[in-house]
């Protein structure tokens, strides 16, 4: 009984500092993984280049729809990257936090390894037209919501 009591106290100590379900976020690791797997095309600050889409101050737009949220994982560069699920989720969260600017709400729902693991099983084959279509849908939904306000 005494032993059990002590362990409960220990567990209480854990709970006070470890939010349940939160995944570890290591910005240094995320940045390194971005450099090794993404930066070559997306540029150091996410501005992109020629045909490479701009993420800087824009990438959060995709979080406004479910398909858009899924899109960021299903694009081939993300889905088929050599990163594990947890590290891919971490890089995506880092990109949104670091490059998203005003396009991202500060309380956006973070990607988790489990979510990313499921979504990356369906990588997109055609990306360009789908991206245009998605953004058009998001824009029209935004307009509709604004007119209802």
């Amino acid at each position, binding site marked *: *009984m*005494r032993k059990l*009591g*002590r362990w409960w*106290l*220990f*567990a*209480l*100590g*854990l709970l*006070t*500092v*470890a*939010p349940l379900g*939160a*995944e*570890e*976020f*290591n*910005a*240094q*690791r995320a*940045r*390194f*993984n971005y*450099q*090794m*797997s993404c*930066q*070559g*095309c997306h*540029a*150091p600050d996410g501005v992109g*280049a*020629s*045909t*490479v889409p701009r993420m800087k101050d824009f990438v959060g737009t995709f979080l406004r729809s479910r398909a858009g949220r899924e899109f960021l994982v299903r694009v081939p*560069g993300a889905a088929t990257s*050599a990163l594990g699920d947890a590290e891919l989720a971490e890089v995506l969260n880092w990109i949104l*936090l670091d490059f998203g600017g005003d396009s991202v709400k500060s309380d956006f729902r973070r990607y988790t390894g489990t979510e990313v693991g499921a979504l990356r099983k369906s990588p997109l084959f055609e990306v360009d037209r789908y991206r245009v279509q998605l953004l058009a849908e998001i824009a029209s939904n935004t307009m509709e919501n604004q007119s209802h306000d």
Partner: protein
Amino acid sequence: MNFLDDLFERRSRQLAQRSSRRGVLKQLGGLLVGAAAVPLLPVARAVAAPQAAPKAPKEMGDESDCDYWRYCAIDGFLCSCCGGTKNSCPPGTEMSPITWIGTCRNPADGRNYVISYNDCCGKSSCGICLCQRDEGDRPPYRSDKTNDINWCLGTASAVYHCSTAIVVGVALDKGAK
């Protein structure tokens, strides 16, 4: 009210019999260790992590020599021999914003750095100081890690001239993950 008195007396006596003052210290110690065993909140960690601004690394070696440390994964003509430097393009060429990125170990400090091999484009091949070390090169099915494509992408001209080797960061020590 007697009921409450009895209850508290009984509990207090039980507690006194079962525990010692040192036992309380032990339990508090457990609480402290438990709290310290867990990393800080993820948000705090994000803020606390250094932004990894690449410091200028210590240098050794000749940048016009293929054996120079930054060229461990290069495949092309060294801009240092072509009127440019390890970090800059020769006049009349444009640096490609789209690059192949790898890591090389710097013998001067023993650390691994992230190197961006930005190609310089817009003039025909420089033709001197060909250097093919290709460490970490992958077949074209890993297109972001293959040297066998022309990386003059995103420039006005796709004609390849030479390659630079720019330090863009410090590699993460995977062992410390």
